[in-house]
């Protein structure tokens, strides 16, 4: 990993169009400003990981119950019965 020392107000350029600026530093945290083109996604790591994990779960889920679930929605029934009726 490349390690650089920067002071508040100083920045780092990464490739073409990404600029990381150190805005504010205190004992426990630092504020960082990031400029990047739209094709570069910038996220806090923990938020990104949560979404990544849920996307993977969603993509591998077997949707065999989707038709039944859709049927419940189409009935316009916001409180489907707990037990089969009839």
């Amino acid at each position: 990993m490349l390690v650089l020392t920067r002071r508040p107000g100083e920045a780092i350029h990464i490739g073409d169009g990404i600029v990381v600026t150190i805005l504010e530093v205190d004992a426990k945290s630092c504020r960082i400003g990031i400029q990047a083109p739209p094709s570069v996604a910038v996220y806090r790591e923990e938020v990104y990981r949560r979404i990544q994990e849920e996307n993977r779960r969603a993509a591998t889920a077997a949707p065999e119950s989707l038709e039944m679930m859709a049927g419940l929605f189409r009935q316009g029934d916001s409180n489907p019965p707990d037990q089969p009726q009839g």
Partner: protein
Amino acid sequence: MGHEVDQLSYMPEDVIRFPAGIPGFEGAREFVVFTRPEHVPFHWMVSVSGPRVQFVLINPLQFRPEYDPIIPSSELRDLDVRDPKELLLYTIVTVHSDMRLSTANMAGPLFVNIRTKIGKQILVDDPRWTTSERILP
């Protein structure tokens, strides 16, 4: 001229590009969204280039009309929205074999600009909305 993925036919203008990718599937950037009559109000989103990925989608307002996540304006800027009408909102559904346990990812809604055919999964940093919100009561 039309294209096909499995039994799905689509036209080039149906393709939605996700320039920033979908977290977890960064290689898949082009998708089509379609609806099967038996699955309404759910939709499918299937990749048409790169790795094969498919998702089930739903408009979250269908079951949570109060959904109003805080979205940083910088996120929407990338979508070049000129009119709110050109923006579609979806959430990705994790379909569970016990349908009552199925959830929608309300912390990562998908926004699609139907004019530019550009989509983005926006990460909502809002503790009220999680990645797994139950769909059925």
